[in-house]
């Protein structure tokens, strides 16, 4: 996996795209949980969302590096 990707001729860290993907992922999870009323199984929704985002971002980072 290349560690940098050329974005408009500027080399940016691939981790930036990991960040964007994790953001989209957490939006999707949020939508699903709301759609199927799963938030009743969650203690603090905000804490849950933050932890889910951190997990996805860290996984993408570990995959890249």
């Amino acid at each position, binding site marked *: 996996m*290349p560690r940098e990707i050329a974005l408009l001729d500027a*080399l940016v860290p691939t981790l930036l795209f990991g960040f964007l993907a994790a953001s989209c992922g957490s939006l999707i999870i949020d939508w699903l949980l709301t759609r199927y009323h799963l938030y009743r199984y969650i203690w603090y929704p905000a*804490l849950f969302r933050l*932890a889910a985002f951190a997990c996805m971002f860290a996984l993408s*980072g570990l995959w890249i*590096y």
Partner: protein
Amino acid sequence: MNDLSKKLIRLSITLTLVIAAIILGRMLWVRYMDSPWTRDGRVRADIVNIAPDVNGLVTSVAVRDNQFVHRGDVLFTVDAEHYKTAVAQTKALVEQRKVELTMKRGQAKRRAEIDDQVISQENREDSSLIATSARAEYDAAMAELDLAKLNLSRTVVRSPVDGWVSNLLVRPGDFAQIGAPKLAVIDQHSFWVYGYFEEHKLALMQIGDPAEIRLISSNQILKGHVESFARGITDRDNPTDVRLLANVNPSFNWVRLSQRIPVRITLDEIPKNMILVAGMTCTVIVHPKS
């Protein structure tokens, strides 16, 4: 479902995820910060500056820019007329000294045979010494001839290594001065990589650890290993002034930037089709054995 178990489920799902996030976050931190890799690597090569060993006009340039040359190939030639004349001149000098030597030897021999009644002892000793001196003069002329021949041979400038001509700026008609570099040859077999690692990453690797090198220019991964560490870098915070006094820059107490230490990486093999250019940027990742 009673209230307590519902509460437990809610708590455990959230807390599990939080703990997973903390563990993964720490793993990423360690991987990124505490593993020996750097984005700041450079491909380097030995570059030989080619300068003529004699003065003179450049008569011909045998190579083109960026051409591959073998060791011993002619690069350019300096006008040899002066040096040919010098050889002829010194040959004549050698001849003359040789004749003189024969003459002086003959004299010395004759005088040695004549007894003290005819010539003085002083005269006899002197003629022997004059012959020895003539011999020395003859030797000096021979050395001058060797020098003239050497200069003549050095009018043809040859490549000392296999490699590529670079930055060829010399043209026929230029005046080549002794010792002034006219072109550079990049040694084909000398490519290596300098990884500029942050200070705190130096302790994480050892000499001999395998390394992988990723160039910006290609997706191919080069293999290498750590050859050595630089044992000195400039102290940029303490330049001395004209009176040799210290001039210490005030530094920030909180934020300190880690300096970079050059680590030399030997390339184990270079793929045949890969174009390596001295000065290329690359990422260096060292995999510590222990």
